[in-house]
C-alpha cells in the first residue's frame, strides 16, 4: 500500500493570519494526507528543521505579510543545505502576480492565491507528490 503523502503546513515570519493555513490543513487531512501544522511565528530555520524531522514530502508556506520574497527562498536554501531538496514547496497567502512568477522560477512548485478551491490543492499535491507502491 502506498505511503500517505506527508505535508508540513507552516507559517513563516511574524504573520499571525492562520485561517487559510488551518483550512488547507483540514482539507488535506480530510483528503487522507498526513498533515503537520507548525503553528505561528516560525523562522525559516525552524521550518526546514521540522520538514526534515517530520520526513515530509511537501512544505506548504502560508504568508500574508508581504515577506514572501525573503521567506520562500530562505526555506528552500536551508532545505538544500540539509540535503533535503527533494522536499517540494507550495504556498499561498497574499502574493502579487509578479512575485508568483518569480517564486515559481526559483523552484516553488505552485502558489495558490486567494479564492483557490482546496480541492485543487489536494489534486495538485496528489498528482505531483504521491508515492507509488
Amino acid at each position, binding site marked *: 500500500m502506498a505511503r500517505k503523502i506527508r505535508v508540513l*503546513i507552516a507559517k513563516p*515570519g*511574524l*504573520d*499571525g*493570519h*492562520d*485561517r487559510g*493555513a*488551518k*483550512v488547507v*490543513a*483540514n*482539507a488535506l487531512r480530510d483528503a487522507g494526507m498526513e*498533515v503537520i*501544522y*507548525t*503553528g*505561528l*511565528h516560525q*523562522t525559516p530555520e525552524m521550518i526546514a528543521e521540522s520538514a526534515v524531522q517530520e520526513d515530509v514530502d511537501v512544505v506548504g508556506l502560508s504568508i500574508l*505579510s*508581504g*515577506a514572501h*520574497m*525573503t*521567506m520562500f527562498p530562505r526555506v528552500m536554501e536551508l532545505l538544500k543545505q540539509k540535503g533535503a531538496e527533494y522536499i517540494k514547496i507550495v504556498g499561498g497567502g*497574499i502574493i*502579487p*502576480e509578479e512575485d508568483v512568477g518569480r517564486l515559481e522560477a526559483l523552484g516553488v512548485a505552485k502558489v495558490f*492565491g*486567494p*479564492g483557490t*478551491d*482546496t*480541492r485543487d490543492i489536494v489534486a495538485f499535491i496528489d498528482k505531483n507528490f504521491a508515492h507509488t507502491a
Partner: protein
Amino acid sequence: MFEENPVQEIDFTTVSAEPVEPLYGPDSVAGLDYMRDLGFPGEYPFTRGVYPTMYRGRLWTMRQFSGFGTPRDTNGRYHYLLDHGQTGLSVAFDMPTIMGYDSDHPRAEGEVGRCGVAIDSPRDMEILFDGIDLSRITTSMTINAPASILLAFYLCTGEKKGARFDQMGGTIQNDILKEYIAQKSWIFPPEPSMRIITDIMAFCSSQLPKWNTISISGYHIREAGSTAVQELAFTLADGFAYVEAGIAAGLDVDDFAPRLSFFFNAHLDFFEEIAKYRAARRIWAKRMKEKYGAKDMRSLLCRFHTQTAGCSLTAQQPENNIVRTAFQGLSAVLGGTQSLHTNSMDETLALPSEKAVRIALRTQQIIAHETGVINTIDPLAGSYFIEAKTREMEEQAEDYFRKIDELGGVVKAIEMGFFQREIGRSAYEYQKAVERERKIVVGMNRFRLEDETIDIPILKIEPEVEIEQRNAVRKVRADRDNDKAARELARLKAAAQGADNLMPVILDCARCYCTEGEIIETLKNVFGEYQEPPIF
C-alpha cells in the same frame, strides 16, 4: 402560500449559516416590550443607540485604518486622508512593531513597513504626526501586546507639540484576550498581559480622561472565520473578563468602564449585522448594570468602531469590493456605529492605493450626505425581522456565556483552545459551503472572468524602507543619552518584577528615547513569552 408558489433550491441562511424565515410578523416579536427591550436612544438598555441624538447630533467618525512604509510615507497618507474629509486617525503598524521588534532585529527582516508603518522610537512617532495637532484630533492605534509603549510614544509626541494629557483623545486596541483567540499577535503570557492592561486602565482613569483604554474586538474573531453570534458572544465575554480584571485590581467599575470601547466587523449579511450591533448594546448595558453594579451611565454604553469585512473581499474582479464595502458600511451606520473604517477595493492584493482609499472614504461620505439614512435614529427598530433577530442573537450569545462560565471563564477557555476550535470549525464549514456553491461569492465561484487581468494601481513597498528604518533606529540609539536610557530600562525591569504601575515608568523610558524593542525585551525577560499549541 408557499405550497402554490415554488421556492428556489438555494440556501436561505445568513452568511453565518443561520436559517431565516420567509416572513416575520407579530408572532415573531411576541412579548417584546418597548421600554424594557428597546428604550430610547441614549437611555437604558440602549438598544436603539448609545446617544440621544446619534447622527443628528454628530456623524460617526470617518476613521480609515492606514499605515505603510516609513513614518514619513504614512504621514503623507494621513494628510491626504484628512484633506479628503476623514475626521479621525487610525494607525496600522507593521509586523515587527506589532510583535515588539525594532526594524534592525533579525526577526524583522523582510517585514519592515509591509503590513503597516514601522515605529521603533518616539522619533518615528514625531515624524508620523508631523503637522498634525494631537490636541484637536483623536487617534486610534491598532496595537496590542506593546500598546503601553506606543501609547507612551504618542503621549511624548503630544507633550513635545504642546498638547496636555487631558486634551489628548484616542484609543489603543490593547485587547490581548482576542490575540490569543484570533489575531495572534501576542508577546507575553495572559497573566502579565492582563496586569499591563489594568495598569493602563488605572493610569488613564486619572491622567487621560479622553482615552479609550481598550477596543474590545470582534473584528478579528470574525475575520478568523467565526459566525456573527460567535463574534458577538466572544467579544462581549472578553469585555466582561476585562471588567472583572479591573475590579480584581482594586478599581471601581465606574472609574474605568466608561473608557472601554468596542470594535465590530461589518460582514455581508446585511440584517444579521444590524441585529448584532443592537444585541451588543442591550447585552452590555444589562450586564454592566445587573452583574457588575455600574452606576455611571457611561459604564453601560457599548460604544463601538466598525470595520467592513476584509475576509469578504475577493482578489477576482476587485472593483466589486467597492460594492460589498458600501453595503457593509451602510449596515454599520444602520446599526449605530460611533466610528467607521471602510475597506479599499484592493486590500486582497496589497495595502490601499490612494485612489482606492479615496473611494472607500467617499463611500462613507455618500452614506452620510446622500442616502438620508442619518435623518432618523435606529430606523429599523420595530421591524418584525430586526427585533426577532436582535432577540435571537442575544439569546444565542447568552448560551455561549453560560458555556464559557462552565469552562471556568475566558482565560481558562483560551487555554483549553475552546474559542480557537469554535472559530476554526466555522471557518472550515464556510469554506466547504463556498466550494459546494451553497454560498455564492460573485466573481469567485460564480460569474467569473476567465483570464482576468488586474487593472488597478497596486501599492508596492520598496526594500529601501527597511534599510532606511534600520539606519534611523540605529541613529536614535547613537544620539541619545545612553546612560539615562540604561537606567530607565533598569527601573522598568524592577517595576515589572514588582507591583508598581508600569505606565509612568514606560513613559520615562520613552522620554529618553528607549526603543520599542528594548522596552519589550526588558519586559520579556521578566514576563516570558507565550507559546500557542498548534492545533488545527
